[in-house]
């Protein structure tokens, strides 16, 4: 269910755009299951700081990743105005904590530009590409990198 932008020919796709701080990002709409308001999470021990904890999503235990922190942005404590995007990553379902969901974008793959070399490695890991939209820059997020991959990394 993850993005296949880089391999596709000029395919049209729908993306969900969201804001973290003053930056704009987007993910493929097909990987988003639902969007819900922030609810206090139960913190998990021995986890990286970007893992906010777990919440109850209709009986499933859903880990919440603070996407801003994951990308190395400055984040503040979540408030009721923050939203959680519930996304599928492979077999897993996780919640991404973002500031706000802003738009649904319909665009074609060939408009995506590769991430320029100026970005740090950490950002390049998660940002698959960039594109311009009405004079704004939107970064396309690679979801499969968002979760800490192994326990070792988490520790």
């Amino acid at each position, binding site marked *: 269910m993850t993005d296949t932008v880089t391999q596709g020919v000029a395919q049209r796709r729908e993306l969900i755009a969201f804001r973290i701080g003053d930056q704009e990002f987007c993910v493929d709409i097909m990987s988003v299951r639902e969007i819900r308001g922030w609810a206090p999470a139960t913190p998990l*021990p021995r986890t990286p700081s970007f893992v906010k904890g*777990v919440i109850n999503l209709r009986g499933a235990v859903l880990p919440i990743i603070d996407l801003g922190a994951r990308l190395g942005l400055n984040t503040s404590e979540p408030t009721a105005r923050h939203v959680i995007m519930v996304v599928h990553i492979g077999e897993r379902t996780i919640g991404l904590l973002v500031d706000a969901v802003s738009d649904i974008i319909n665009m074609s793959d060939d408009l995506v530009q590769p991430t320029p070399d100026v970005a740090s490695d950490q950002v390049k890991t998660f940002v698959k590409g960039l594109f311009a939209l009405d004079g704004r820059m939107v970064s396309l997020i690679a979801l499969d990198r968002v979760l800490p991959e192994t326990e070792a990394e988490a520790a």
Partner: protein
Amino acid sequence: MDPFESIKATFFQECEELLTDMESGLLAMEQGDDDSETINAVFRAVHSVKGGAGAFGLEELIRFAHVFETVLDEMRSGKLHLTDEVAKVLLRASDVLADHVAAARSGGSVDEGRTVGMIADLQGLIDQDRAAELGLNEDGDTSAVEEDFGFVPVVLSLDEPAADAPEVDVAALMAAAAAPPEVPTADGAGTAGAPFWRVTFRPKAEMYAKANEAALVLRELARLGDVEVALDASAVPPLDQLSAEQAYLTWTIRLSGDKSEAEVREVFEFVEDDCDLEVTREGEAVAEISEPSFAADEDASASAVEAAAAAPLDLDALLARVSTPPAEPAAPTAPAPEPVAAAPLPAATPPAQDPARLDVAGLIALAEKASQDHAQTQSTPAKAEPKADQKAEARAAAGPATAATPTIRVDLDRVDRLINAVGELVIQQAMLSQRVFESGLARSSDVALGLEDLELLTREIQDSVMAIRAQPVKSVFQRMPRLVREVADMVGKKVRLVMDGENTEVDKTVIERLSDPITHMLRNAIDHGLETPEEREAGGKAAEGTVRLAALHRGGRIVIEVQDDGRGINRPRVRGIAVAKGLIAEDAVLSDDEIDNLIFLPGFSTADVVSDISGRGVGMDVVKRSIQALGGRISITSEPGKGSKFSMSLPLTLAVLDGMVVSAADQTLVAPLSNIVESLTPRAEDVHLIGGRDAVICIRDTFVPLIDVGVALGFRDTPLPPASGVAVLVESEGGGKAALLVEAIQGQRQVVIKSLEANYQHIHGVAAATILGDGRVALILDVDALVTTSRRKAPRIEKRMAV
């Protein structure tokens, strides 16, 4: 899956059921039950396995099943008597048969030597001449097997008898009539003078009541060789005296060819008890036979049709009779000799030349007359109807021996989804009630009352859903007799296994994991617990030892007990070994109970000689660990000279856990109750520091590590002052004890286990998560990990780590 494979899968599923039936029958026989019904049940099971195997060309399975079946057949016909020895051989044969089925299923092969040995043993049961006659020494005569498609009886036994039987019969009859197999020409050319079999076949009413079909039997017989069939319908009374449920017809069949008597009888095996059957070998007097044969001067195909249709003829007469008053219920009248309701038979009105036809004509005439008398005809079916009902009931009552209550096979996934959804429903319902209560609505308001009803309903749904997954422990227990036999053989002891509470139900996930510990405990009981027969006799006990395996429900848990009447635990010796292996100090003071429980220590083995079965010293501690992994406990009680009893108690399900809800560092956590020994409020003077951070607590003069849960999980940096919290004494699977320091105990609750790994990953110190009544997620502590971490003094991992 291609259709053939799926049929094959069904066959193996059926095989499993058949093998189970067979084994329970054999076990009954071992207890001395030589009732023909039991023997027949076993025979049918083996035969059906063989029949199915024939359809799939599973040669090795067929060959073995054939020998097995032949021996059973000898028994059934009373030529072989049930003795202890015979029962034992048969039981072992059943094990080999199960192996064959398993091998056929997985595509593997069976130990050839074992099979050959078993076949020799089986043949040893019947004397050699008979064996030769029965064709046992040939390489499994598969030809007979393949023709004999043994699936039919299985299917029928599962059907609702009354409703479906006629349909089945009609189809079969039509087939029989439409495609006469190799039914011979009437004059039996070339067979005159040659020896032949004369078979007299007189079905009884019971045979029809069991939905058996004479025509099918005759057709089957026709495959063995040239047959001439004669129907003697002289016993059919006039219609007004005819009882719908009686059998009046007799067939005489002349079968030529060089088949053995066993092969001829095999055709009748499913109906043998419900008919009079004579099979005689005759070498001359052909003419005598042909006399009553109506087929003598007709052409071949007509005779074939009639052979198949002979029985239904009088039914047609009946139909003719009932057709006049149409309001009359035809079906109850129909189950005359043949339960073929409205079969429009091609051979319905041939010229009446033989006794049967004449009679039919008479019947028709009678029927026409009778139909004019309305009152009379009405009374007949009125009588017949309740009878038919009774018959159906009787059939249904006779069925359950083989056919259990109707069941469906459901994917476990679907059930799990349902269980999840219901779990969420319960949580949601609890949250809703809490909200309504908080909103200040009166308790007697409609909303509150409605919610109460909803709560009752949700509980009921939850219980029923959990019951879906619950299964009797029988599926595990039934594998045990074989194990006991094998182990007993290997160690040369005589063992009787008594099983109790096989129908105790427990969650499927638990059942799957019961098998290993039970196996271990049984082996242990036989190998270590029981004495040899000589020792037992010397000790004034019966030479045969008894091992009792029981399951029962107690306090919301399932308890499995394995009890033997052997020598009991030799405490001085156990103690000596423990000291020698350095497991306990030489001067340790231990109670009897504590000594008994030493056998659960890792690396402990009392057997002087390491045997194949047990005694590698990994036995009981493995059992204990696997049981604790399931949230269970195991204990032993023993009395020297009288035996010992292991009992393990397990939760009824792995989806739900009994937990103690505690709070630590503002977090709500759940500790599995199975780990908890006791809880206490520590006094400041009992807590001692070793070094800077690590604390121990003195509980009744024993020092155990004190683990601050909030700090161990990284929720807090500074430890809680011991005196302001509660210490929960826990025991880990490895037997290590520790005290967990928490802020408060909130209570004890059953919680639904939710996996963390499903969406995230494993976290050290956390076993799983659960959802509490307020809808928030709480973590379930992994007590083992906490205890071992503290013991290894592993560097603590701080929570806030850079990426």
